[in-house]
């Protein structure tokens, strides 16, 4: 929909980014703790985590605004750790865009080129070309505060791309916008990624954004990367309890592993995929939409209990289920047809073996 051609010709640059054991400490607090990550050329990767998880600090170390205490940042195979931000040649899109308020759109976009001492003619033609690509050619002489949020994002994109950096860093660009606009701009960024083919590192605390846009998602917590996987695997195969709980909603059921069988709180056997760990206590994770309520226990087992509440949420109904041992579980049922469930009805909660994950940590 936007940006039909690749930016600045057909052979736009792109490069890999590699982080080697990055560490950053503020006083006694470890902001980033031994973070390693390789991002392939052209990949879209999200750093996802709650505030204080170290995702922004990591991005700022890549951009050069924070110096790591130890570790390395490689652009391609070049070590850029000691370089100041202005010599890193990375495009950065900031939260709220950080457009210069005293400069017009055209002056904003020309800024990186002027700093690179390009000739006037070259600057003019590049600015003209990229503003046309983001459909802002007609607004070149406006000031940022005279533009809508969506237009501002396009100016920020144009400014970050006009000097053809191999990598684009995005620091929660959609953070402060309302929901409708966020979804629209999310798609715009995704389309942009497909068209320019640049490596993009996207920092967000919004799991929907990360899952919808990324090739891979790196979930961060307390300064560490807890899991790096494709969105689908993050959601379906969380590596630990934090990832399971942070991304989407999840039922966590305390279980005991004993000689190849998973035992629930009441000692019942439960459906689960095969696991490698030794016998002992574990947690079984199952997403609400995978948890079904059935009249009778099947051959693979389930948890007995009663429906304790129902909430209609539009496309689905969320059923609250209370097991006989007092465990609260959620089940999400799409409202494709009317169902006859009532609060107080006895049911057995069950799921497909492959939809569950066993976490022993």
């Amino acid at each position: 929909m936007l940006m039909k051609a690749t930016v600045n010709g057909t052979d736009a640059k792109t490069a890999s980014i590699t982080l080697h054991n990055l560490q950053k400490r503020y006083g006694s607090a470890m902001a980033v703790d031994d973070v390693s990550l390789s991002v392939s050329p052209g990949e879209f990767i999200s750093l996802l985590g709650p505030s204080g998880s170290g995702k922004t600090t990591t991005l700022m170390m890549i951009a050069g605004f924070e110096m790591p205490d130890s570790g390395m940042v490689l652009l391609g195979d070049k070590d850029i750790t000691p370089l100041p931000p202005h010599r890193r040649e990375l495009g950065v899109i900031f939260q709220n865009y950080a457009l210069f308020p005293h400069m017009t759109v055209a002056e904003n976009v020309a800024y990186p080129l002027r700093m690179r001492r390009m000739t006037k003619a070259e600057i003019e033609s590049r600015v003209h070309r990229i503003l046309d690509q983001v459909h802002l050619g007609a607004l070149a002489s406006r000031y940022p505060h005279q533009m809508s949020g969506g237009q501002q994002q396009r100016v920020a994109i144009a400014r970050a791309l006009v000097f053809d950096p191999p990598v684009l860093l995005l620091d929660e660009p959609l953070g402060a916008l309302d929901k409708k606009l966020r979804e629209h701009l999310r798609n715009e960024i995704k389309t942009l990624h497909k068209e320019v083919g640049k490596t993009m590192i996207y920092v967000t605390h919004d799991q929907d954004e990360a899952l919808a846009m990324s090739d891979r998602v790196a979930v961060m917590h307390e300064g560490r990367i807890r899991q790096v996987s494709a969105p689908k695997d993050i959601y379906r195969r969380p590596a630990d309890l934090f990832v399971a709980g942070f991304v989407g909603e999840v039922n966590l059921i305390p279980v005991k592993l004993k000689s190849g069988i998973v035992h629930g709180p009441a000692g019942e056997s439960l459906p689960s995929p095969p696991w490698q760990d030794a016998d002992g206590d574990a947690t079984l994770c199952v997403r609400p939409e995978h948890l079904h309520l059935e009249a009778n226990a099947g051959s693979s087992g389930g948890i007995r209990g009663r429906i304790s509440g129902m909430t209609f949420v539009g496309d689905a109904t969320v059923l609250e289920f209370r097991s006989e041992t007092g465990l609260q579980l959620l089940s999400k049922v799409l409202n494709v047809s009317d169902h006859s469930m009532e609060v107080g009805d006895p049911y057995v909660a069950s799921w497909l073996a492959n939809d569950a994950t066993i976490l022993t940590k």
Partner: protein
Amino acid sequence: MAGTMSSMAIKARAQSSRPWPTPWAWLLLPGTVFLVVLFVVPLTGLLLLAFGMPNWTLANFARIGDTPVYLTVMRNTLEISVTVTALAFVLSYPIAYALTTGGMVLCTFLLIGVVLPYFTSTLARTFAWIVLLGRNGVVNQFLLELGWVSQPIPLLYNRFGVILGMTHIVMPMMILPMYTVMSSIDPKLMRAARANGASPLAAFLTIFLPLSLPGLIAGILLVFIYCLGFYITPALMGGLSDVMITMAISSQILEQLNWNFGAALSVVLLAAVLSLLWIGSRFFPIEQLLGFSDGKLSSSVTRRQMGAKMLMRIGSAANALDRWLPSMRGRGVPILASFLALLLLLPVLIVAYLSFSASSYFVFPLPGYSLRNYEAFLFDTLWVRATFTSIRIALMAVAMATALGAMLAFGLSRGAMPGRGAMIALLLSPIIMPTVIVAVATYFLLARWGLQGTEFGLALGHAVHAIPYVVVIVVANLRDLNPSYERAARSLGAGPWATMRTIVAPLVLPALIVASFFAFLASFDDVVYVLFLGIGKITTLPMRMWEGIRQDISPTIAAVATLQMLFATTVIVVGTLLRRQKKT
């Protein structure tokens, strides 16, 4: 485009001020009447007097133009003011910049360095400089000790001394508006510039500097105006050839008793100040820099592109030089700023140190510690009587200023009425106008009522001067006072008075206390009003210091100055604590 935007803004403002006065607006009445009678009327009277009322004449002005002495006075005033303003600007910028961009520890130190001198009375600071720069002063002692000079060099009672002392005293006034504007600049913009390939220097030149321009202009303007009307420091530190216009005015009124001519000189100064304010208001809403803001800095302001194009060119050139510039790893500015802030603090600290001297002369380092100067102050009936006179007058002034100022603040914050902008201008002008002019004008008025030389008359003058401080502090606080608290109280069954008593009063009380403290300081530190309104009959504490400094530089004054400083520090600390308490 810009034109239509700004005209839209004007229309919006006109509409918002159109509604009829609401009941709240009645609170503006007493304060307005007070200011009209004691500020507008006297200034008008001054104007009439200068034109020889009732025998209209321009002779007084012609005399200024004809007399070479007065042309020299004008030239002195301009030269000194321009030099001081320029110097203060150059020295203030690094401090303001470091205050905006520095870390916690640095900022705290710098703020102390700016705020402590700011609230120490001008008189105490001038005294500090006299002690430092005198023939046997601390600086000369040092130079002799180091063998850099063979005999004391004249540092005081000449142009050098005046400029140094004035610069030191006006610097906080330059730093505060700069800091206000600089701290409103989003730090992400600097990062964005760096990410787009700008070196630190280039980012500063192309982004930070142009965006901080309104604050720079305002700081320069306020300081320049203050210099034009500066009296205490030039009168105490200047030589015979450094007479400034304020000194000429005071001599005409107090010594020559030539009221018409003194009024004419005042009108010249007033006209200069007003035209500067008018020019300044084209660039920036000045009331915002005195801490009076109804909302955010308007966006049109940040867009004024004074020389931004040129800065862009310089910035881009600076970028090419980046690789060859020595890198200070970003420590250059903080180090420079800390050094300058130390210089700001040093004079007052040295005086505090010297006040504990065991000797009756200022010797550095101290030959021994003692409290003899404090004893001399406490057991001298003249000093003690002066202190009580000061306290009596300050309490009267505080009572009037706090009551009227609080009502004005409520009226302005809550009441809607036409002419609100003019109202704010009237309220703030007593602190922008040169004190000498206001004092002279008030003197003429009080003389007509027979109130000259009375403590009540002096308190009236101080109240006019203190009202703006009260209004600024209370208005800032009322902005935080969410009207929904009051609505909640009403919905819960509280009547208007009960709401006032149980909700508004407790929330506003800390601000009122802080405001009255500052009103107290404004009165307690004043010399200029006493000089004119006291007609030699009233001796307040600063008046006694003033006389003491002129006659002999007695070490007792060091003790008094230190006590004043201590008092100011207490006010600041209490104010900060009260404010913090409110937030938790």
